[in-house]
């Protein structure tokens, strides 16, 4: 069980570095299903585990010259503050309906990102063929 948790932990870190996400998408299920924490504790514990992961990732990215420190700090502070609003909203909104809307919005964003990525890849391969 510990070995499985370690393997999935590494995978969560790889996703985190590759995509700039925290990795909670894998860490929460591992903590809950493999290490046996309840859902609330798994989410809380995942937040603590994410801190060094994101910090090391941001530090490496700075080394690669990709980090915009000012934007990161501003966005981070506002995200931390407004998460409180989000948690409060859960208790007053029809969450079921909002969840479908959020899912649909994410699919739309996925389509836009995917479309622009594919056109870039096409342009790159056309450029490579020309040269």
């Amino acid at each position, binding site marked *: 069980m510990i070995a499985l*948790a370690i393997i999935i*932990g590494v995978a*969560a*870190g790889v*996703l*985190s570095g*590759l995509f*700039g*996400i*925290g990795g*909670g*998408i894998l*860490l929460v299920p591992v*903590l809950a299903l493999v290490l046996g*924490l309840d859902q609330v*504790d798994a*989410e*809380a514990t995942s*937040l*603590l*585990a*994410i*801190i060094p992961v*994101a*910090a*090391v*990732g*941001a530090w*490496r*990215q700075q080394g*690669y010259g*990709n*980090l*915009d420190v000012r934007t*990161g*700090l501003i*966005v*981070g*502070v*506002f*995200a*931390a*503050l*407004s*998460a409180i*609003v*989000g948690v*409060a*909203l859960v208790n007053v909104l029809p969450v079921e309906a*909002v969840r479908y809307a*959020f*899912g*649909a919005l*994410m699919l739309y*964003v*996925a389509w836009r*990102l*995917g479309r622009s990525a594919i056109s*870039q*890849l096409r342009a790159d391969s056309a450029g490579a063929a020309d040269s």
Partner: protein
Amino acid sequence: MIGIATGIFSGLFGVGGGIVLVPMLVLWIGFDERQAAATSLLAIVIAASAGAAAQLLYGNVHLVAALTVGIPAVAGVLIGTWLQQRIPVALVQLMFSGLLVVVAVLVVIR
């Protein structure tokens, strides 16, 4: 604006900030996938620290469990950031788009 939207969504749906933040940095600010990932990770350090501090007060954090997954994940993030510099940004963006589809499905069906 982006920070506020990120926080509200992550508080509402329990999704991490990055999954919301990275697309906004790419589509609205015009960052490429590497710059967006880098900046998102720094923002996550702050947001996760605030969240973890609050959860520590409630006594919901399991330190040993956090270390069990956190230490391997730190090793993983070194691999992930290294790998990201060697994959074309457009391909990273396409993979991210696939990840978003998976998360959209998870959010709806859970």
